[in-house]
């Protein structure tokens, strides 16, 4: 069992309150996913030439005492790039004007236990083990701002409880996916993707879905075509919620084995595994509440 939440605000003024509105949604899904939590938030994109990466130091020896500013200095010394560092405990967002592959390769070589959570111009990503309330407090989720986000609370069934196996998963740039359910053919998907040079970081089944869909997008499919191929290739039980810089997308398996409910008003679209995560939202009593149908694509534009 797991919980998924998503929130897309239509009213620009609500972008300031994105995190504050989302935290009770995430905490509402604690019973469905008490072991880990995470979220990806999409905001105003950086200029074309810039990129940012979210990093997690919880797996390094220094943990939350990791010297992020030192990392910034080393990047300057080795790569000649001035990275802007926004750090909090075991998490940092590094922004820079350089090909992200160059920076990520350097980080992997020099700090192999530093986990790269996400790459892109819009996405910031946070995930860790602990209850949703603990994780939300650890990273100050209530203060997050942006146009939309994708969140997850995990009750692990398919792989161990570790920060890197928490959701959301990312692949490529500015793409993330959360999953409630379990896939039955993740290893087949891996065997198809790995010869194409696509590398996996964990043994988690959701990572296979994430990398498959991102691969299709990178090959030129639009989101709808990629999701259609997902229906054809991904076998198992799933409700997937995905984020891109300008979209939230949701699909459910043909048997609708895993739940989802949507509440939409003039101000926002909110998605959760269960209504109890939506009950606190402003105006929800008059929202259009519905259950997404199985094997249908739901795409909302930010």
């Amino acid at each position: 069992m797991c919980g998924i939440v998503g929130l897309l605000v239509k009213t620009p003024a609500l972008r300031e309150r994105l995190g504050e509105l989302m935290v009770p949604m995430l905490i509402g899904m604690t019973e469905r996913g008490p072991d880990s939590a995470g979220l990806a938030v999409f905001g105003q994109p950086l200029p074309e030439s810039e990129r940012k990466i979210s990093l997690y130091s919880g797996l390094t020896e220094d943990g939350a005492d990791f010297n992020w500013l030192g990392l910034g200095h080393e990047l300057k010394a080795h790569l000649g790039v001035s990275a802007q560092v926004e750090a909090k405990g075991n998490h940092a967002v590094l922004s820079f004007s350089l090909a992200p592959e160059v920076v990520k390769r350097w980080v992997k070589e020099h700090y192999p236990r530093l986990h790269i959570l996400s790459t892109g111009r819009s996405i910031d990503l946070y995930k860790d083990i602990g209850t949703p309330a603990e994780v939300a407090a650890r990273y100050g989720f209530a203060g997050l701002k942006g146009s939309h986000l994708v969140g997850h609370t995990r009750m692990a069934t398919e792989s161990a409880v570790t920060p890197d196996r928490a959701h959301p998963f990312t692949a490529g740039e500015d793409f993330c996916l959360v999953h409630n359910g379990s896939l039955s053919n993740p290893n087949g998907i891996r065997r198809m993707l790995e010869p194409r040079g696509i590398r996996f970081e964990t043994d988690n089944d959701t990572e296979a879905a994430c990398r498959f869909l991102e691969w299709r997008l990178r090959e030129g499919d639009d989101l709808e075509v990629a999701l259609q191929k997902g229906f054809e290739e991904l076998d198992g039980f799933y409700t997937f919620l995905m984020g891109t810089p300008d979209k939230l997308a949701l699909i459910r398996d043909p048997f609708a084995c895993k739940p989802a409910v949507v509440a939409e008003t003039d101000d926002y679209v909110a998605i959760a595994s269960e209504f109890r995560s939506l009950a606190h939202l402003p105006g929800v009593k008059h929202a259009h509440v519905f259950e997404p149908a199985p094997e249908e694509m739901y795409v909302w534009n930010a």
Partner: protein
Amino acid sequence: MERLTFDLATTSLRELNTFLHTDAREGKVEAVTVVNPDGAHNIAVGLDCPITVEVVGHAGYYAGGMNKSATITITGSAGTGVGENMMSGKVHVKGFASNGAGASAHGGLLVIEGDAGLRCGISLKGGNIVVGGSVGSFSAFMAQAGTMVICGDAGDALGDSLYEAVLYVKGSVKSLGADAQFEPMTDADIATVAGLLDKAGLDHDPKAFKRIASQRSLYHWNADANQEY
């Protein structure tokens, strides 16, 4: 008639259910209103007395499950397994219902004014279900006894491996499951549909429904069927 209100924003669900299982059973009130249900699970489960419960808002999983004698109304939507294993009484959902509505109900009446999700009436054992909207795939799977009236459409594999339950559908059926078949409507069928629509408070022409029941070809092992049904 004495009516008591429970606000689940300030009162615990356990307090509500304990009241419904003790004081309500002793006849201390005739009706209970539940406000701010906010999707909580297990609202008014296992009731065992002829009380009236109105849930104002959206209910979570298993609302009115195992109901006996009580009349439970949910003004919003209901989560998975509403009215599951009901024995008697009535559960009435004004909005939509999620998967597995009325699963394994032995008796009573479940009314869903909106759409029902997948597997509605799965393993029905004698209860009656009236759905004002459409039902999802695999509804009435292995339904053994009882009646389902579907005023909208049905998804895939309706009535798969049906026993003696009878289904009536007004709209289209995407596909029938193994061993389910359309049968002619008799006057008795029209009367059954009319009676259930009346009890549900829904206005449809009972003559516009189609009857679906079991071919009974799965009742006995057929060594020549080669697993093709």
